[in-house]
């Protein structure tokens, strides 16, 4: 009786790239929901816009590169890129912002390098950095939480019209409704000569909403850890490095530097540590390499957000460490079983 043969192993885990990416998307779902609760439907619309753009761009790129559409459109990585990018943008940002950013991310940062798995730079962060250096004003229009705001929240229709026309409903003005992010507020206030205490107070008015969202992000991250989608090295190294830098500077001069808790819970620290720096494709390879990589991101993030010109440094830090990855990989090849160090 003849049988068909195949190479060992004859069983493989029921796993796929699509499943990995989808798990990450599920882990982000609570964040999106909480975002809606606090800030209205803006983010959801941005995600839809970004996803549509990402899929279009992916289709275009795959067509041009003559690759099969089905497996790559279905793998979810482009959608994840769009979602992460959307999470970094203000919810009422005009529509062309997310479209431009996603297109840059997918076309320039991903497909020019050979598509899924080959991109040395984190596509979402390339998209975000492009937007940040090109359109800084639009990226400053962050909203205060609906609940805390004296204005009634924007309705879905108003949100849509704001995103697509770029102008607010007549009863509102940008200056009235936007509020700086905590990091931004702290920087501004310190530059104004406030003391740290005053600055903190000012900065922390709207923080409770963000703390909930941070909690959701951390929960999602822990879930990813438990699901073995990510490992602890990058998040721990990155958050540890941020905390270490912040503690040192805080110990030296508590009057002008915020403490570690503030830094860990503001800006994109947590999102970066669990969802962005962990992008496997553009991260370092070995465990030791990933520790170096994560710590590098942490230190650079702290430096940029504390002394640099841009409000948060996660995106730049990730990109800078991305470009160091081949170098890190070269010097962190792990010891092989039976070989001396």
């Amino acid at each position, binding site marked *: 009786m003849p049988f068909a043969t195949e190479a060992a192993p004859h069983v493989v885990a029921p796993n796929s790239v699509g499943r990995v990416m989808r798990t990450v998307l599920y882990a982000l779902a609570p964040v999106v929901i909480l975002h809606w609760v606090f800030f209205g439907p803006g983010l959801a619309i941005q995600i839809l816009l970004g996803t549509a753009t990402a899929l279009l761009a992916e289709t275009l790129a795959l067509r041009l590169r003559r690759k099969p559409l089905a497996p790559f459109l279905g793998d979810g990585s482009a959608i994840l890129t769009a979602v992460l990018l959307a999470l970094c943008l203000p919810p009422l940002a005009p529509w062309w912002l997310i479209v431009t950013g996603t297109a840059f991310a997918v076309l320039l940062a991903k497909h020019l390098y050979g598509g899924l798995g080959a991109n040395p730079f984190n596509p979402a962060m390339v998209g975000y950095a492009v937007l940040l250096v090109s*359109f*800084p*004003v639009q990226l*400053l*229009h962050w909203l205060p939480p609906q609940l805390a705001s004296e204005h009634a929240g924007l309705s879905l229709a108003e949100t849509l019209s704001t995103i697509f026309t770029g102008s607010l409903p007549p009863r509102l003005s*940008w*200056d009235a409704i936007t509020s700086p992010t905590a990091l931004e507020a702290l920087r*501004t206030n310190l*530059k*104004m000569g406030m003391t740290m205490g005053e600055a903190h107070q000012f900065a922390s008015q709207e923080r409770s909403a963000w703390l909930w969202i941070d909690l959701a992000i951390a929960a999602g991250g822990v879930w990813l850890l438990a699901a073995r989608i990510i490992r602890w090295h990058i998040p721990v190294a990155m958050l540890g490095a941020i905390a270490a830098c912040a503690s040192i500077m805080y110990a030296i001069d508590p009057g002008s530097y915020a403490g570690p808790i503030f830094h860990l819970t503001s800006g994109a620290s947590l999102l970066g540590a669990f969802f962005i720096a962990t992008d496997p494709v553009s991260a370092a390879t070995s465990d030791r390499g990933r520790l170096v990589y994560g710590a590098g991101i942490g230190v650079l993030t702290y430096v940029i957000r504390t002394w640099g*010109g841009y409000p948060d440094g996660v995106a730049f830090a990730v990109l800078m460490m991305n470009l160091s990855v081949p170098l890190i990989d070269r010097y962190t090849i792990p010891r092989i079983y039976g070989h001396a160090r």
Partner: protein
Amino acid sequence: MATHADVRRNAKAQAVLLVAVAALVSFGLAGLAQITRERIARNAQAWMQQHLEVLIPAALHDNDLLADTITVIAPDSLGTAQPVTVYRAWRAGIPTAVAIRSIAPDGYRGPIELLVAIRYDGTLLGVQVLRHDETPGLGDAFEKREPHWLERFRGLSLSNPPQQRWSVKRDGGDFDAFTGATITPRAIVTALRRTLEYYQRHRQRLFRDPPADAVAGAAADFERTVAPAAWHSSASGHR
């Protein structure tokens, strides 16, 4: 007659050849420098002159502004530890105005170089931004997006608005900021206030020395302005 090959092989000849090239180059360059020296000096003067003319109307002075300068050092008031040039305007030997190359050190991406013209009585004649490195499209709004922003300062003084209102609206002051950019306006407003304060405190000493000889000044090289010996602002400390 040495052939090419001989020269190529002879080390000394090669050295001489290289030195000759260098000498030739420097000869040409030195000649050109000689020819252009005055022109370049005049260009530099003209550049400054342009800015000064915009700020200090001809009616206010009969002296050559570029020729009558003093340098002062006042790190706390003028934003730099370097010597700062002050142009003085006189009319018929009576002091009418000054223009101070003050610096706003706390711009968003670095110092902003200003030229602040102040009437003798302490009201602002105007402000020009000489150099800056603010974020294009954000902090540079005074250039293109809100070109009238700088004009707003004309005629103001430390009492108008009152000194404590010399800040951007966000800080409880009188002045608008740019959309999405408060740091740059705040830096400029603060620098203006400090400059005005400095002027108020030191007006007497700024005009203590009599006007420079107009004739000597016009002929002088810009780089070596005939200026009264630099004096140091006593109020603001020394180097």
